[in-house]
């Protein structure tokens, strides 16, 4: 079974889920560390998506002016 391609909405949903879990505080230290690492990776990925989206849109709009 192929791994489902990550998309922005799913990534944000997962960040929210981790955030809610951690705010409850009912996680082991090991789990905590793993969750935070996962959340950090997701945030970095989302940032990358935001940057590439900005670039794509800029390129598209710039091509209108040519």
């Amino acid at each position, binding site marked *: 079974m192929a791994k489902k391609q990550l998309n922005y909405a799913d990534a*944000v949903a997962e960040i929210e889920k981790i*955030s809610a879990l951690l705010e409850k505080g009912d996680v082991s230290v090991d789990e905590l560390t793993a969750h935070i690492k996962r959340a950090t990776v997701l945030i970095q990925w989302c940032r990358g998506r935001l940057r590439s*989206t900005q670039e794509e849109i800029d390129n598209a709009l710039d091509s209108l002016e040519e």
Partner: protein
Amino acid sequence: MPTESFSLRELNLLIRQTLDAHLEPSYWVVAEIGELRPNQKGHCYLELVEKDDTGIVAKIRGNIWSYTWRNLAPWFEAMTGQTLKSGLKILCQVTVQFHELYGISLTIKDIDANYTLGERARIRQEVIQRLKDEYLFDLNKEIPLPLVPQRVAVISSPTAAGYEDFLNQLQHNRYGYRFDIRFFKAIMQGDEAPSSIASALHYIGQDAPHFDAVVILRGGGSQVDLDCFDTYEMASAIAHCPVPVITGIGHERDESIADLVAHTRMKTPTAVAEFLISGMVLFDERMEMAYEQIRAETTHILSEELHYLQQLASGVQRIGHQHLHKKAMALSKWEQTCRYLVSSHLERQENYLQLKESTFRLLDPSALLARGYTLTTFKGRPLQIKNMPKPGDTIETFTLTEKIHSKVENIESRK
């Protein structure tokens, strides 16, 4: 039995003596020439008569001796435009002569040309008056001459020099105009001329729609014997012709009655040709002017229309440009809006991510551990009211690098 008698010769001599004694040397006498016969020797024998309504009422023989005749005949012709001929009324200076053998006769010494001219003028005036009384004088002039008289009937003698000149002039005109000429042969001088010309005119009149003008040409030849053009018969025929008549009779003396009655009078056949050609030239020039006018008007209209079209075109172009400019403005506004929406959306996302990041940083104990604090857990969970150890329980303490297991000795409240 008579007491005295004469021989015939004696009687004739007596008559002669009596006449010589009682008559003046010469008399001026008005008489009509009855007969006239120049003979081989150069003398001229004639008969003088006087007529009234009943016929001849007086008659006498006459002669003009050669030395008189030689000068008198040409002089009279030059003065009056007429030859001395039968039927002519003259005023002459005569000497009465009686010869025993030849009887009585008149020797003509002189003729008064002025009398003949006056006589001619009187007859001429009578003819003119009659034509006027019968409303014939201006009849032919009232027919309009076509603008371009091209179909021309010519009445002339085929041998007349004037006819040749006329044809040459028309056919070789320098403009190259073409004329449709139909020739009608007629006798152009003498007593037969009026009826000959009248019948030609009559013939043409029957075919009137096919002719623009009739030309009567004499031209060249003797200046005498032109009386035929002064006759009522000729003038009446011209007046009645339904086609305009142009005369080119070619004489130098005053106008003939034919000239007066005709639509247009030209002096010579050549002048008639010039007249016809000039009519063509005039028409041609009018056409040329009309053409120029039409051309100028057309050019003007076209250039105005062209100007109007150019204005329209530039208007359309301007409106097009304005329209495009508006569209471009709208597009660029839309683009700016797009950029704004995108960047604000992305910014919001970025802010969200930053918030989450700082939250996670706060929750991450690693930083506290790195600064020497520790984290203690009981049964794998943080120490909380519902997860508190009792003395004797084992708890785990995490440093940055180690995990320490400790036994709880006692618990004090910090409150």
